[in-house]
C-alpha cells in the first residue's frame, strides 16, 4: 500500500505540518504562540503549493539554452507574493498583540477573558 501512495508523501508531510500549526492555534492560550502557529500553518500551505508545481526532471523556471522541461512557474509567483503579504499581516497581528498587552497587561487568552468577565460583572453590580 505504501508503494502505491509514495507519490503522495509530499502532501502528507505538508498536512502534518499544517495540523501542528492548527493545533497550536486552537489549543494554546498565548497570543504570540498562536501567531507562530499561524505561521507554521502558512508555510505548510506554501510547501503544499510548491510541491504541486514540481515536474520530474524539470529545472527552475529560468529560460536557458537546451533546457526542455521547466517546473510550473505559476505556484511560484503566487507563493512569492503570498510570503511577503504574510509577513506584513503577521506584523499587523503582532501590533494588535502589543496593543492588547498595553490595554490588558497580559497576552494570555484566558486571563484576557477573565478580565473581560470581571469588567462585565462590575457593570452588572453597578446597575
Amino acid at each position, binding site marked *: 500500500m505504501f508503494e502505491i501512495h509514495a507519490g503522495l508523501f509530499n502532501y502528507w508531510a505538508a498536512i502534518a505540518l499544517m495540523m501542528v500549526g492548527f493545533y497550536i492555534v486552537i489549543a494554546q492560550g498565548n497570543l504570540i504562540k498562536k501567531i507562530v502557529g499561524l505561521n507554521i500553518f502558512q508555510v505548510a500551505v506554501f510547501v503544499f503549493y510548491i510541491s504541486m508545481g514540481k515536474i520530474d526532471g524539470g529545472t*527552475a523556471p*529560468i529560460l536557458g539554452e537546451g533546457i526542455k522541461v521547466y517546473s510550473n512557474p505559476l505556484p511560484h509567483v503566487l507563493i*512569492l*507574493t503570498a*510570503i*511577503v503579504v504574510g*509577513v*506584513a499581516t503577521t*506584523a499587523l497581528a*503582532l*501590533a494588535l498583540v*502589543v496593543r492588547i498587552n*498595553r*490595554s*490588558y*497587561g497580559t497576552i494570555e487568552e484566558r486571563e484576557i477573558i477573565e478580565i473581560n468577565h470581571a*469588567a462585565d460583572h462590575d457593570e452588572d453590580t453597578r446597575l
Partner: protein
Amino acid sequence: MMHQKSVLRVVSKLLIPPILLFALYVQFHGDFGPGGGFQAGVIFATAFILYGLIFGVATARRVIPAAATRTMLSLGLLLYGGTGIWSLLLGGEFLDYNLLASTPSAGQHLGILLVEFGVGMTVAGAMTTIFYTFAAQTLGGDDTPKEEV
C-alpha cells in the same frame, strides 16, 4: 549596553554597504536570475534594520527618517499604479506595457523595470516603517502609564 559590542559594530559596518549593493543587484537583475522587487525591498530594509539594531534606532532615524520611509511606502504604490495609468493614457489597457516604448519588447522591459521598482520601494518602506513603529514602543519603556481600557 549595546554600544559595547565592538565586534558587532565593526562587522555590521563592513556588512551594510554590500547588503545595500546586493539589494540593488537583486532589484535590477531580477529579470535574468532569481530575484525581483519583493526580495530586493526586504533586503534593502534589512540593512536599515541591522543598522538600527546595532547602533540604536535614534541613529537609524537620523540616517533615514521615518517620514522618508513612509514616503517610500506610498511612492512605490503610486509608481506601480502610475505605470498602469500611463499605459491607459497612451491608449492601451491598464498595465499594458507594450505601448510604453517604441517597440513592444522595449516597452515590456521598461514596464517591468518600473513596476518592480515600485514593488521594491513599497516593500522596503513598509518593512522599515513597521520596524520603526515597533522600536518606538520600546523607547517608551515601562515608565509610561498604561492606557485605560
